[in-house]
C-alpha cells in the first residue's frame, strides 16, 4: 500500500496522475478514429509540425506552460487544416507531401529553439513531455478542452461513424462531408495541443494510436473499442508514472512503454486464441 501511496504525497505526482488519465482518455477516444481511418502518419506529422509554433511562443513569452498551450493550439489547428487541404492536391502523393512539410516544420522549430542558449532542457520537454511540471492551471485547460473534444465526438457520433466507414454514404445522405472532415481534423489538433505537456511531440502518436489499436484487437464494436481504449490509456498513464517514479525514467517514455506492452500482450493473446 505504501508502495502505491508514497508517490502520491507529492502534489506534482497527483497532478501528473490526473493529467495522464485525462489526456489518455481523450487521446484514446480521438485515436479510435485515427486508427480506423488510417491517419497514424497524419497524427505523427501534426504533432511534429506544431514545434515552430511552440518555439515562437517560447521566444516571445519566455516559456510559461499555460501560455505555450495557446501557441500550440493555434499552430496545431492551422497545421491540421493545412495538411488536410494539401492532402487533396494531387501533385505529389499524400504521404510524401505530409512528410516534406512535417520534417521541414520540425527542423524550423528546432532551429528557432536553438537560438536560445539554454535550449536543451526546454527542447527535451517539448519533445518528450514534462508531465510532472503540470500546473493546476494547465490541468483546467486539459479538462476544458478535452471535455469539448469528447462532447463534440458524442454529439456527432453517428456522423463520424458514417464518414469513417463509408464516405460515399455520407455524401448520398447529404451530410456536409468537408465540414465534418475538418471538424475531425480540428478535434485531433486540439487533442495534440492538450496532450503536449504529457508526452511531448515525439511520442504523441503513441498516445493517439497505441491504446486504440490495442482495443481494436479485442473488440468488434466501436463503442466498446472506445471504452477499452480509454481504459488502456488511463491504465498506461497511471502505471507509467509509478514506473517513472520508482525507476527514475522519463515519464512520457514510461507511459508509452506501458501502452506498448499492453498492445503486445493483446496481440499475443489474440494470436494464441485464434489458433
Amino acid at each position, binding site marked *: 500500500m505504501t508502495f502505491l501511496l508514497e508517490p502520491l504525497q507529492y502534489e506534482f505526482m497527483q497532478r501528473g496522475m490526473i493529467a495522464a488519465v485525462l489526456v489518455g482518455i481523450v487521446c484514446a477516444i480521438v485515436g479510435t478514429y485515427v486508427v480506423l481511418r488510417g491517419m497514424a502518419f497524419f497524427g505523427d506529422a501534426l504533432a511534429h509540425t506544431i514545434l515552430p509554433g511552440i518555439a515562437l511562443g517560447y521566444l516571445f513569452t519566455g516559456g510559461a506552460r499555460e501560455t505555450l498551450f495557446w501557441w500550440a493550439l493555434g499552430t496545431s489547428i492551422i497545421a491540421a487544416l493545412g495538411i488536410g487541404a494539401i492532402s487533396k492536391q494531387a501533385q505529389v502523393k499524400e504521404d510524401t507531401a505530409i512528410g516534406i512539410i512535417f520534417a521541414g516544420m520540425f527542423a524550423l522549430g528546432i532551429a528557432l529553439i536553438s537560438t536560445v542558449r539554454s535550449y536543451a532542457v526546454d527542447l527535451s520537454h517539448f519533445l518528450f513531455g514534462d508531465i510532472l511540471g503540470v500546473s493546476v492551471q494547465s490541468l483546467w485547460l486539459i479538462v476544458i478542452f478535452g471535455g469539448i473534444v469528447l462532447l463534440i465526438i458524442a454529439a456527432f457520433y*453517428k456522423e463520424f461513424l458514417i464518414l469513417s466507414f*463509408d464516405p460515399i454514404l455520407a455524401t*448520398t*445522405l447529404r451530410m456536409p462531408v468537408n465540414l465534418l472532415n475538418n471538424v475531425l481534423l480540428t478535434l485531433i489538433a486540439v487533442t495534440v495541443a492538450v496532450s503536449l505537456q504529457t508526452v511531448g511531440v515525439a511520442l504523441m502518436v503513441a498516445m493517439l494510436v497505441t491504446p486504440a489499436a490495442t482495443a481494436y484487437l479485442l*473488440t*468488434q464494436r*466501436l463503442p466498446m473499442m472506445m471504452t477499452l481504449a480509454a481504459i488502456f490509456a488511463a491504465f498506461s498513464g497511471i502505471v507509467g508514472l509509478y514506473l517513472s517514479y520508482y525507476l527514475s525514467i522519463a515519464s512520457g517514455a514510461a507511459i508509452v512503454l506501458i501502452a506498448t506492452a499492453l498492445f503486445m500482450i493483446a496481440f499475443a493473446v489474440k494470436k494464441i486464441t485464434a489458433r
Partner: protein
Amino acid sequence: MYPHIDHLKDKPILDAHQVFVRYSARVALENVTFHLHVGERVAVVGPNGAGKSTLFKVIAGVIQPNSGEVTISGSRPLNHSCIAYIPQRSQVDWNFPVSVSDVVMMGRSAKLGPLKSPKKSDWDFVNHALEVVELSTLSKRQIGQLSGGQQQRMFIARALAQEAELMLMDEPLTGLDTPSQEGLLNVLNKLREDKVTVMVATHDLDQAARHFDRIMLLNHRIVALGNAAEVLRSDILLQAYGARLRPLEGHEGLLTIDDTCCDEGQHF
C-alpha cells in the same frame, strides 16, 4: 444537413442529359443521355473501365459532371437523400468494428437528423429491413463474418432503412457463387412491390437478360439501351467490347466475352 426535396410525380425518377465526365485527359463518360421511370430495373453492362462506376457516382451526386445534368424526380441529386449507392465489396473495410444492424442503422441517419440518436421506431425499421433481406438472425455479427452474398444483402437492407427510391449497385454479383447470386436477385425482386428503381452494374449478360427490364450497354457513351433482344446482338456487343468479344466455336449465335471479372486491385 440532410436536405429533402419533394419529388415531382410527373418527372422521371432519373433523367440524365448529355453528361460528360473527364479525369484529366481521359474521358470517362461522353454524352450520356437517358431516363428511368419509377420502379424500373436496369442492368448496366460494358467492358472494364467503361465508366459504370463513374456513371453511378454522378447519379448519386458524389462526382459532379464536367458538363450536362442529372436530375432526380425533377431536381439535382444533391437535393436528395433517397439515392443509395452500394459499393463494390472490394471498396469496403470489412474489419471495421460495426455489426450488421449498426451498418443498416447508418441508413436511418438522414431520417434521424443531426444530434439525434435512434428511437425504437428506427430500430423497428432496421429490423424490418433485415427481415426483408433475410438477415435477422445475423444482425449482431461483425460485418466481416458474413458471406459475400450476405454482405450485399446487408447493404440492400441499409438502402431500405434509408428509404431509398433509387438503388445503384456496383457489381453486386461479382465474386458470388450461383446460390448467393440467386438469393440476391430474389431480394431485388421483392423490391418491385415498393416501386424502388434499381440500376445494377454487372458483367453477367445472361443474368442481365433474365432479371432486368432493360439493359444499358455502356462504353463511355451509351452504345445501346433497351430490352435484351434489342441490346444483346452480336453487332451491337461488338461495338462495345471490340476485340475482347469472339464467337464461340460451334455454337451458332453464341458469344463469349474475354472480360468477365475484376477491376485492378480487386481481390476475392
